[in-house]
């Protein structure tokens, strides 16, 4: 898809070159960047706190203070070829599933403005599933050290390769943006990859004075080889196994995501909140998340407080196969499968958290943020912690201390 976008780009440049010569100041190339240098301490020593679900290590078990949870660097080139045609390429380096900081392409697309208010893009983009999804990695642009995981982890937001259309329209005193997208993508993790196919989404944003209203809905088909193989094993157990497999398998089923957000920012203070629900008639189940953050600005200082909550609304346990009905070694096999299945469906994020922090805009384009999070994981939930050690007990409370230096240039 990225290759096709590059071709499209090349074709457009050739066909538009007449316009290119006519307009002064074009083509124009801009370079921009953003980044965070951050450290986090977690008092849960038997598991790792991570900001990105796909990272290999985090704070707590692997490191007492980890600089790898929030630190990242993003570089972007924006090429404006004609008044209508432009292209964006953004590369991000951050902790990955393989433990490296190897740079990855986050955005790479070509945009054509059919009118000043209607634009079409093809290539790699980020879905606007949540109010801040598209700029979730640009910590300088958000009040927190990292977006509230109770909402932003409902569906691991990742980039996708596809097309999108954006339409801006204006009413009396409001400006609106309607966005439609279609595509697919994949995300690698330590022992495999998750693919999203036929994903589409629609989102709408209204800026009306100091108020921003956001709504989005999207569907995607998720599949992961590892999960498919797991249910193939269930199918060996005849009809009862088939039933469980067809009920919980992920492949070929649609996951939907509905999101609503609001923010009010008259300048000297702000309040923002989001509510979101993901549903899937599979292992992924149904989850809800919400947060609210309030901040106050005093000169270069922005103290803020926030609360957030995530819960699983579908069942979190399953009797599974009746192991006693099968001869050995199938008895043990059935018990093993049931154990893994229950572990998987109970692993959803169920927690409440309180966040207190302060941001200091000490010079143009640079901000320093200190943040404390208290997370109360409910009912045997392990939240989003990874690298859980045998001594780790789910359902506990953890305290996080984070310091971050954010910059844009």
């Amino acid at each position, binding site marked *: 898809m990225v290759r096709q976008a590059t071709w499209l780009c090349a074709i457009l440049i050739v066909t538009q070159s007449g316009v290119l010569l006519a307009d002064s100041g074009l083509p124009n190339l801009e370079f921009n960047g953003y980044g965070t240098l951050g450290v986090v301490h977690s008092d849960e020593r038997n598991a790792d706190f991570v900001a990105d679900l796909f990272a290999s290590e985090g704070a707590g078990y692997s490191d007492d203070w980890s600089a790898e949870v929030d630190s990242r660097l993003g570089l972007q080139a924006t090429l404006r070829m004609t008044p209508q045609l432009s292209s964006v390429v953004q590369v991000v380096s951050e902790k990955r599933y393989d433990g490296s900081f190897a740079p990855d392409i986050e955005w790479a697309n070509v945009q054509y403005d059919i009118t000043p208010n209607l634009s079409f893009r093809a290539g790699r983009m980020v879905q606007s599933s949540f109010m801040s999804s598209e700029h979730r990695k640009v910590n300088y642009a958000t009040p927190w050290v990292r977006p509230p995981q109770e909402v932003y982890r409902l569906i691991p937001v990742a980039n996708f390769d596809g097309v999108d259309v954006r339409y801006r329209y204006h009413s009396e005193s409001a*400006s609106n943006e309607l966005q439609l997208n279609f595509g697919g993508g994949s995300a690698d993790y330590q022992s495999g990859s998750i693919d999203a196919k036929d994903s589409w989404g629609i989102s709408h944003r209204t800026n009306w004075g100091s108020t921003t209203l956001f709504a989005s809905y999207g569907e995607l088909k998720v599949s992961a080889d590892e999960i498919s193989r797991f249910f193939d094993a269930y199918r060996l157990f005849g009809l009862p196994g088939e039933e469980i497999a067809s009920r919980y398998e992920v492949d070929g089923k649609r996951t939907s995501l509905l999101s609503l957000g609001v923010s009010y920012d*008259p300048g000297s203070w702000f309040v923002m909140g989001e509510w979101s629900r993901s549903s899937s008639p599979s292992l992924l189940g149904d989850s809800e998340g919400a947060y609210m953050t309030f901040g106050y600005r005093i000169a270069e200082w922005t103290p803020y407080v926030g609360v957030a909550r995530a819960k699983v609304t579908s069942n979190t346990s399953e009797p599974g196969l009746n192991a006693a009905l099968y001869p050995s070694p199938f008895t043990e096999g059935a018990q093993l499968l049931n154990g893994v299945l229950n572990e998987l469906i109970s692993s959803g994020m169920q927690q409440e958290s309180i966040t207190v922090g302060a941001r200091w805009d000490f010079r143009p384009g640079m901000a320093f943020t200190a943040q404390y999070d208290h997370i109360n994981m409910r009912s045997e939930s392990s939240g989003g912690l990874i690298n859980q050690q045998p001594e780790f007990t789910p359902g506990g409370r953890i305290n996080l201390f984070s310091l971050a230096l954010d910059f844009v240039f």
Partner: protein
Amino acid sequence: MLKRLTAPLVSLLLGAALTMVNHPARAEVLVVVSAEAPFTRLTRSDLRDIYLGRRTLIASGVQVEPLDQVEGTAARSEFYFHYTGQTPAQIKAHWAKQIFTGRGQPPQTLTNSRAMVERLVSDAKALGYIDPSFLDERLRVVTIE
């Protein structure tokens, strides 16, 4: 311990008080266009949307190109504080969202009011703001409703 806490607290409050003093409610910048420009009035929300990159056309269908003074100038801080209620850091964060989501680049910047005037008189689509002492007959003041 108390003493150590008091000092930062006092400086914080002082900072807040100074910010209020530094931003009087009355704008000390004029929003201007070339005398050749096809418009002389703008609504406050149009002006805000144009400068925040949410709109390039005004109600009459006229295309407008906003111009900025460079960061750190008093005119720029004054302009944004008066017409958007936002500090330079908030404007910077706004543009970080726009740039890194492919929604565009901030307005072209000019070094001072003099450079702004020279640019405005040569471009009827351009919209800018200047220190009142730089106003001359080649420009028109835009009424913000």
